[in-house]
């Protein structure tokens, strides 16, 4: 028994530095400290895609773009916002798999060194992205579920085959830009809607997201790639990426409650 316990402890103690060695990147430290990109601040949706399903509540039966299955259509065809209101489920279309599609603003801050907090003004939702071990006891299912976060870093040196060829000896190569991605996996959801007109996702859905930054002139863009796996209601993965633009401050922050209709 003692030997096995010692072995287990050693395994736990070895995991973290082993991870760091495998990354080949900066040594593991508090996620806030080692963050390769700065996601904090205020971000506004740019609704240039899927406008007719996001800016307005689409007509009942408008399901284009979602890889629904027959079960999903049965549920969606029965959509009744009045029932959702009566059940106190106005927030059904503001769950984690859909919240990034809702036009609004994000406010991203560090709640502590290992927890990124995302607040939305549309629907007044809060998501906590936890770095580190998954808690052994799951909380009750919720619209925002449980999110496990992980930084994905760029390696300190690109593989030789991907290093750009220099053209001329007297032209210095551009400075390497440190970067990375935030990967978030969310489970433990309540069933909700991918679209406000009742296109459903189930409680067993798994949401995977990637958060990337792009600088363009004076603007910083955040792209949130969302992948919804839901064999209950989707034939294939739902894959879509939403762009946001960084704002200087929260002057336009406009909290509005959930709505089942608008």
């Amino acid at each position, binding site marked *: *028994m003692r030997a096995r*316990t010692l072995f287990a402890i050693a395994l736990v103690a070895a*995991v*973290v530095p082993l*991870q760091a060695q*495998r*990354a*080949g*990147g900066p040594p*593991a430290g508090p996620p806030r400290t080692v963050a*390769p*990109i700065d996601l904090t601040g205020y971000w*506004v949706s740019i609704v*240039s*895609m*899927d*406008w*007719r399903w996001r*800016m*307005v509540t*689409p*007509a009942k039966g408008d*399901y*284009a*773009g979602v890889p*629904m299955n*027959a079960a999903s*259509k049965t549920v969606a065809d029965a959509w009744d916002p009045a029932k959702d209101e009566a059940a106190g489920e106005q927030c059904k279309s503001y769950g984690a798999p859909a919240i990034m599609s809702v*036009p609004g*603003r994000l406010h991203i801050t560090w709640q502590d060194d290992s927890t990124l907090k995302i607040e939305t003004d*549309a629907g007044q939702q809060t998501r906590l992205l936890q*770095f580190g071990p998954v808690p*052994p006891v799951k909380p009750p299912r919720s619209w925002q579920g449980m999110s496990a976060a*992980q930084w994905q*870093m*760029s390696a300190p040196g690109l593989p*030789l*085959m*991907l*290093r*750009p*060829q220099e*053209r001329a000896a007297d032209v210095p*190569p551009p400075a390497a*830009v440190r*970067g990375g991605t935030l*990967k978030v996996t969310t489970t433990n959801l309540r069933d909700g809607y991918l679209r406000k007109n009742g296109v459903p996702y189930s409680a067993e859905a798994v949401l995977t997201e*990637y958060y*990337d930054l*792009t*600088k*363009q002139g004076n603007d910083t*863009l955040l*792209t949130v*790639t969302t992948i919804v796996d839901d064999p209950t209601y989707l*034939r294939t993965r739902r*894959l*879509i*990426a939403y*762009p946001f633009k960084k704002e200087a401050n929260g002057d336009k922050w406009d909290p509005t409650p959930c709505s089942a209709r608008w």
Partner: protein
Amino acid sequence: MRRLFSLALLCSLAGAAPAVAQTDLSGWWARQSQNDNGYASEPVDLIGIPVNADGRAKALSYNIASLSATERQCQMYPPWYILYGPFPLQIIAEQDPVTQKLMAYRITGWGDRGEQMVWMDGRPRPSPNAPHTHGGFSTGTWEGTSLKVVTTHFKMGDMKRHRAFSSDRATMTYTLTRHDDIITVTGILDDPVYLAEPFVLTEIFQRSNDTNGFPLTPCEPIEELPMLHENPALVPHYLPGKNPFINEMTQKRGIPLEAVLGGPETIYPEYRKKLKDTYKAPAKCVDSCGGPPAPRGGGPGQGGQGAAPPAGRGGPPPAGRGAPPPQ
């Protein structure tokens, strides 16, 4: 004990420490197209596009019969087509044969247009006086885990097929970021001629081994509407206020005309306050509604894969295959 062991395993899986992002973009990538980037049904459709007054006027004067000029028939495929076209990507790394370093990425696999060379070697851009090409001139740089590509010197074309147009002064910037088996492309089109602010679209491509799904056939112009060839000085266009399709999207989907005509105000959340008073959803969807495919042996399906219809499907008939719409 078992619990301790499980905890150790969970630690390794939970990613307490950062992981290495993948950067190799080479390979075949199939478009997922689960957004409406390529959607094109109603002839007047500028929703979500931050056009300026010139861009709007140009769009409203557009008559698809103008495609009968053979030189225009492939103008729908500028570099921006990567964001809204239906085709996949093939990305090939071109190595220097001596140093093995990366000289360029060749992005091909698009039907209707040729490949795009993304030069990674820091070469300068052509002169502002140089002639433009369909594919333009592209340079690439690594920004962290993303490849950032800047393309200039491309010809005028469509930024939304047959609906909105980009000029020869546009700059396209796009980043390709790999996440496991997918690539997210974020595209930014900056056009001082037709846009009030940059137009941002995204698309996702997934690793694919199905090379049979990659048509490499080029766009080949042919003669279509005879009258333009009999009188080459003819220019098909709609006079201001005379576009017969301007209300189609409003009638079909209840979207107010102001929103249909695009503009920077219409792409931000604040615009929903205006829409709340002016938008009335139709009782039900009647056209291009998507949904699951019909069961085998059953009745008519309600949509293809549930994805938005490919560009052009359901759009106005090509010139020559029906009478041009009345003025």
